[in-house]
């Protein structure tokens, strides 16, 4: 029988569906009887889903500098040893 501690330690494997079917059944059995662990798994799932909302791009200054460098680089690559592509 799994303990609450096992649920805590293997929560990501459960959420990522990486447990064997046997382990998954044991895991779900524990969740069925333990309100604290149900709560914990719900919170972990909420945490993981919320993280996707943190995605952000670099600031526009960084982008501008980098794009300028890349354009220069690609022009010299195109006129150098690398064959020109269709334009």
């Amino acid at each position, binding site marked *: 029988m799994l303990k609450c501690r096992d649920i*805590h330690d293997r929560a990501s494997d459960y959420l990522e569906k990486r447990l064997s079917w046997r382990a998954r059944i044991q895991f779900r059995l524990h969740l069925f009887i333990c309100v604290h*662990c149900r709560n914990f798994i719900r919170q972990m799932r909420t945490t993981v889903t919320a993280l996707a909302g943190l995605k952000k791009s670099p600031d526009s200054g960084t982008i501008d500098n980098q794009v300028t460098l890349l354009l220069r680089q690609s022009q010299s690559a195109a006129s150098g040893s690398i064959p020109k592509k269709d334009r």
Partner: protein
Amino acid sequence: MDEETLITGLLAGDEAAFRHVVGEYHGLMRHVARAIIGSEFADEIVQDAWVAVIQSLPRFERRCSLKTWVLQIVSNLAKTRLRRERRSIAMGDAADLELLVATGQLFQPDGHWLEPPGNWHHDTPELLLASEQLRAAIETALTALPEMQRTVLTLRDIEGLEMEEICNILELSESNGRVLLHRARLRLWQTIDQFQRGEVE
């Protein structure tokens, strides 16, 4: 912008395509470089990687996504540089891996919760991020994570890469990658839990 259009644009020197990839990949590339070689050399590695991307793009064989390919280039350059600098890979994190998740204070000796998770007032992803203070707490916790944990979590949970790709890019075994991801998630969960308990008190 789909990937083929993007690649064609990059090969043609199209500014919009460059703007798109820089916006999407630059931050990620810095994460990967920092995870492998530390912040001292990360920017230099990323610059070199962009040059390598432009030079190698005509030979890109599309065996993986453009993003994975670009991150692989960063990873290879960082590792080459690391060997040159004769430093060992992210020592702090490697040592960290030897430790089990620090769960001692959360559980009784019989494995039951010592202090069960509290009830969250902000209990959906939208509500978590809607609270400015909580969002700031999450971002601070993310910044405070050990470099390798932060990179794995960022690539997996923020950028949505597959674990296999991430382990490949960072040269981690699958089990180490999973441990790092789980540890990082637990720290963020704890941060949110503590924040919400504090709000109730």
